């Protein structure tokens, strides 16, 4: 694992996976995934569609068993043994349409070992707390998709789990409810609950996560703190000059590109001072200059792209052999 090697975690681990491999009919969906998620963290699994995020989460939760590799969840390699301390919201939401909202929550709790009567009581309380009191006695089939999704979310948390796993939790939610969910996730983490979620919307991860794992092509090219991911690519410089050309052009780095009246390039390893000197001496006429630290999105594109290129090279080498 890359990131955690750079910044070792002192907290005990909620999840530890080594070399997870999963194949479906000859296709390798997940190819040697390593993950370590500290307890109490908000951890994001980022990746494009089909990258292997859901398969990885399913293996961690024991829904499917990996073909190779080892996983440990809350201290055990048998996830069902600790199922009562885990909550899971799958990407494809599903509830029994004939169940009433509070019964659905109670049933999801009962599956995790919460007594049914207690689950019913908490189900009603949770629905009231989240402004869904009017839906308590409604059947799931009578609720809108978004409301049913919220009911399932409450069912995921009704037994007060130590670890919550969300697979693409923001999909299907409007902006208001996305914000609500972000607040809920922060609240869980504040109470010591480990939150792990997958997403292909980087903004959520950037706002929420302590650490992320980037999955591409079934592999994890990066896992670690968000800051470390962002530091993987150099800060970006945006420069605006009065002059279009001059001897100062030779001082700009090779990756420079021009968009409108601006020049864009990565901050040179030698720093900004030598460049500034060349611009001033060459009379470029600096109108504006800004140095921006890379966002997680840029880091993701750079890392996932690098990994794809590496995978392509590996395929070529294999073909040559």
């Amino acid at each position, binding site marked *: 694992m890359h990131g955690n090697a750079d910044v070792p975690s002192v907290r005990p681990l909620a999840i530890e996976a080594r070399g997870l491999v999963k194949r479906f009919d000859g296709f390798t969906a997940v190819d040697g995934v390593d993950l370590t998620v500290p307890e109490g963290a908000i951890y994001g699994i980022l990746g494009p569609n089909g990258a292997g995020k859901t398969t990885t989460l399913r293996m961690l939760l024991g829904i499917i068993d*990996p073909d190779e590799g080892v996983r440990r969840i809350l201290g055990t390699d048998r996830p069902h043994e600790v199922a009562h301390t885990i909550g899971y919201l799958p990407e494809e939401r599903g509830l029994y349409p004939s169940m009433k909202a509070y019964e659905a929550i109670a049933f*999801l709790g009962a599956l995790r070992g919460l007594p049914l009567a207690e689950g019913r009581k908490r189900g009603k309380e949770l629905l009231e707390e989240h402004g869904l009191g009017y839906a308590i006695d409604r059947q799931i089939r009578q609720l809108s998709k978004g409301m049913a999704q919220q009911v399932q979310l409450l069912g995921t948390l009704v037994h007060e789990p130590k670890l919550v796993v969300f697979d693409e939790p923001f999909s299907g939610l409007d902006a208001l409810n996305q914000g609500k969910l972000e607040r809920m996730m922060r609240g869980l983490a504040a109470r010591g609950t480990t939150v792990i979620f997958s997403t292909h919307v980087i903004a959520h991860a950037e706002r929420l996560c302590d650490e992320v794992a980037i999955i591409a092509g079934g592999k994890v090219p990066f896992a670690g703190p968000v800051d470390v991911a962002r530091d993987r690519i150099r800060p970006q410089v945006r420069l605006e000059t009065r002059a279009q050309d001059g001897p100062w052009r030779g001082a700009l780095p090779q990756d420079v590109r021009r968009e409108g009246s601006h020049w864009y390039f990565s901050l040179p390893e030698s720093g900004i001072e030598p460049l500034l000197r060349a611009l001033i001496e060459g009379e470029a006429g600096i109108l504006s200059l800004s140095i921006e630290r890379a966002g997680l999105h840029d880091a993701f594109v750079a890392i996932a792209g690098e990994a794809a290129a590496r995978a392509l090279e590996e395929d070529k080498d294999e073909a040559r052999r």
Partner: protein
Amino acid sequence: MSTAARAGRLSTLQAAFVMARRDFVAVLFSRSFFFFLLGPLFMLTVLALAGGVGKQVRQNTERPQLGVAMSVADTDAVVKAHGVLAAQIGPAMPQLVVVRRLAPGEQFDPLSEIKSNKANLAAILTGTPEKPTLTGPQERIGDWQGRVALIAAQAAGKGPDSFPDVALSGIATSKADQSQSRMATAQIGQTVLFMLMMILAGMVLSNLVEEKGNKIIEVLAAAIPMDAVFLGKLFAMLAISLVGITVWGLFGGAIWLGSGNSLTDYPAPAVGWPMFFGLGVLYFALGYLVIGSIFLAIGSMATTVREVQTLSMPVTMLQLLNFFFASFAIAQPGTWIETAAIIVPFSSPFTMLAKAAQDDALWVHGAAIAWQLVWVALLVRMGASLFKTRVMQSGSGGREKRRWWQRKGPAPA
């Protein structure tokens, strides 16, 4: 939120109970359960049709016979007369067998001959053609009285205008009548068992497909072992069927008893009514668990109702064959065919229930139940394993290799 009770780890059986409770309640209050309760109406129709076929089988395989025990000359005359009349009247004439040609002065007790159950005798004709006596069950001899008078008149060389009086000597029940009644009980028992099992297996299958359609299967798979989902579904449907049987028993029994019927009016199955009903429930449960586990395993491989129908069709046909095999076997007692039908786990429940109607030996049921339990355990295990592998396309690894004796250990908090 209240924190009065915390969630605790569920064992596989507890998880199966959670699943079974959900399915049981959901099905009990669903429209499909209403149709399930109406099932006997359809079943009675099938039963009536099957009864027609069964009657034909019975007539062919075990036609009640009329015995004759007279002096040598009279016996020959009766046999000859029967031959002449049978040629004219056809199958309406009872099948005739010579029980004994009596020497002059020899005494013969027709009652003990019938009770000895040596042959398939429904009644015995004694005396002489001029003064015949017919001994047998009241209903049977009343039915045969006219035909016997015809035979006696023909044997005595009298014209169609003069028939001897046939003295009737009634007894309670003959072996042949008892055998026929028990055969009917056996056939009814088999058909009810088969219909119930197929209805339930179909219900458990559609329930599973619905679950896959609802996408809830992933939630279940994440929370509890797939074995528990499998067992829960299987036993929920068994419980549903027992509710159904109780409802039918209470309503049907009330209507039946209210109509002035009583079980004592009918020849009891060989093992007696209480034991027969008990064994019926037991064989039903075992047969259902066998077929239900196969259907559930099939359901795990299918994603749509159409796929389920395609995949389950061969199994349904195979089960139908087993039913016919068991139906055929009950007419072949003591043969290798019956033994084979008992040994094959899929036909065993049908065959054994029929055997309970026909044979009073109880040890065979003990042995058959033990044998079927072995198969239930085996098939449930295999079904659950296939279910787990197929339903979520799971692999086989994921944990550090440990021997089974190393797997026990305290659960993490």
